[in-house]
């Protein structure tokens, strides 16, 4: 389709685990991303949520080709970039940029802001120094900094301001896609709101497309048009932000949503939380069948632990990988336990 800027199909990234000092022998693999497929429309924000270790950052790095995918295809702007060489990737890179989590680690402390923001222009555009300087100063203004900051060093800025520098750098070449990997999780709430608003404004102004990765469900809800929930390297649920938050279908999404603290004592204490047991399993040896089954309140032996559930459509692009999707929401833990014997089969995707 023409309005899909990014099409990812059956993406897998497995990191080999080796034993032995001299004769290394592969004894297994960390399945960081395991068979994930999705599309990103031009001009939208796709939110990716999941807990630490669910593979969301690895996925981002695969999309950016900072990591080589083990399997699957990545089609960016109509071109398959999965197996492009470094040299072939170079012209593509100007169209895809990344904003990182830690604004302290992602800016070179020994370079001036002008250089950090303008470096991409230096590499990709044939501009004079004066032109670059003018463009960088424009960019600094766009992200809410002052053009005088051109000659300063990163340490002279606060966390929020540094994140603005990172955003200016990502915007320098007017990219088509920006992958934001936890861009606000290191910031305080009031500064976080500034950056989120800025990202939204920039998107409107420059018609940007974002893949926005975060662990904070509130933040993802605010910024995203569509949302993908990941668990242990796999997609659990995918849908429009509103559908997914208001009528989650996957028990894991339900548990996640009910676990988020509500900044309102009346609402928060009235709701019944679904507290999951145990921890996220080891991705070297993921559980059989549905990877969520050992912690799932709806687990049915002989079904959930046999085969990975296929993605099933629930109307309007809402896709769920679960044999016993939730019938309604909100639900208490008890209601979640009472799963129907056999759910009517929605159409496979």
């Amino acid at each position, binding site marked *: 389709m023409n309005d899909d800027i990014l099409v990812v199909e059956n993406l897998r990234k497995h990191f080999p685990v080796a034993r032995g000092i001299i004769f290394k022998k592969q004894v297994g693999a960390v399945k960081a991303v395991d068979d994930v497929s999705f599309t990103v429309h031009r001009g939208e924000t796709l939110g990716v949520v999941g*807990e*630490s270790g669910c593979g969301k950052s690895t996925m981002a790095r695969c999309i950016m080709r900072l990591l080589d995918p083990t399997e699957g295809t990545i089609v960016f702007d109509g071109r398959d970039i999965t197996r492009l060489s470094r040299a072939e990737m170079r012209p593509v890179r100007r169209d895809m940029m990344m904003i990182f989590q830690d604004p302290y680690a992602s800016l070179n402390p020994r370079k001036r802001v002008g250089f950090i923001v303008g470096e991409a222009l230096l590499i990709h555009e044939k501009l004079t120094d004066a032109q670059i300087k003018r463009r960088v100063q424009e960019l600094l203004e766009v992200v809410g900094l002052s053009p005088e900051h051109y000659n300063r060093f990163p340490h002279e800025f*606060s966390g*929020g*301001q540094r994140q603005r520098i990172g955003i200016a750098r990502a915007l320098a070449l007017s990219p088509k896609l920006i992958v934001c990997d936890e861009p606000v999780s290191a910031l*305080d*709430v*009031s*500064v*976080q*709101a*500034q950056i*989120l*608003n800025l990202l*939204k404004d920039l998107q409107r102004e420059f018609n940007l497309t974002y893949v926005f990765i975060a*662990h904070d*469900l*509130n*933040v993802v*809800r*605010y*910024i995203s048009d569509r949302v993908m929930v990941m668990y242990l390297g796999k997609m659990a649920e995918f849908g429009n932000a*509103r559908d997914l*938050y208001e009528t989650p279908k996957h028990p894991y999404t339900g*548990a*996640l*949503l*009910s*676990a*988020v*603290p*509500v*900044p*309102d*004592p*009346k609402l*928060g*204490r009235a709701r019944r*939380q679904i*507290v*999951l047991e145990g*921890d*996220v399993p080891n991705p070297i040896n993921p559980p059989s069948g549905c990877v969520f089954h050992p912690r799932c309140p709806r687990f049915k032996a002989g079904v959930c632990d046999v085969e990975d559930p296929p993605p099933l459509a629930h109307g309007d692009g809402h896709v769920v990988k679960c044999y016993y999707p939730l019938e309604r929401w909100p639900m208490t833990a008890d209601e979640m336990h009472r799963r129907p014997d056999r759910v009517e089969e929605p159409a496979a995707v």
Partner: protein
Amino acid sequence: MTTALTGAGAAHAGPLLDVRELRTSFVTDDGIVGAVDGVSFQLGQGKTLGIVGESGCGKSVTNLSIMGLNPKTARVSGQALFRGEDLLKASPARLREIRGGEIAMIFQDPMTSLNPVHKIGDQIVEAVLLHNDVSKQEARSRALEGLKEVGIPQAERRLDDYPHQFSGGMRQRVMIAMALVNDPAVLIADEPTTALDVTTQAQILALMKKLQDDHGTAIVMITHDLGVVAEVADDIVVMYAARVVEQANVEDLFERPQHPYAWGLLGSLPRLGADVDRLVQIPGQPPSLLRPPNGCRFSPRCPHAFSRCRQEDPRLMPVTDAPEHLQACFLDEETKAREAVKTLTAAAA
């Protein structure tokens, strides 16, 4: 076991912990940093007090000062009465007795607060032996009890594991077990769930609530997350730039916040159930405590500030019809009531 009162302490009436006009400053090369400036609060038996604020507002230093854990460059004044005894004047020996005994602490990062080269069983046993005259065997059985109580599976076997063999959530459980093994009257929890994922956070908060109900422990919960305090706290102290700007019970604070900073915080939170197009943002960033602004410290960022705010220090004053609700803002109550309603309706739209 419902109360933890022992010896002379049991006779003391009034709040368990009564902090009065606490001031802490640090002498640095650049000048004197007033990290805590006149903080007062009370904590009752079995209650939870939430201290909220952004990084650098002095919420952690407040508690380190109470426990006598500040570096030597700190100057502390005021009073911190624990069952009538001023902790700021207590001898180092007496403080050692109290710390981990009657007042215990847990910290944000359970990886750095556990010793990586000792088995966790031995670390808990050490905490028991320091404060109780019991045999090693008895201490070990208490450690085991503690681990079982915080829900660590196969506790017997895990006593002999090292911290790296535990997940983040399990490590925080170990920390809680260690803190509670001597049945403290007060537990100070400094961002105990910040490093954890939401579902793990929900587990830990539920566990703390249960243990509080079982043992009658009073908790001081330091956090930047308004959602967390809304769930667990009875009373809330909001700090900004080393000072308390608002103080109230949890319902009052969320129903009729009085201070513009509190409105800003509540408005800048993205929420799950709300379709907000734009978050309220507090412009600028917190001031440097080396050279704090004159008058109200929030005035440079406050959209409601007028000339008086920049000249005079606002004092904490009770709200007319709610004497327990304290706030430090010069605006008239009518404006405050109007603005509070505006903030809350906008946030929940």
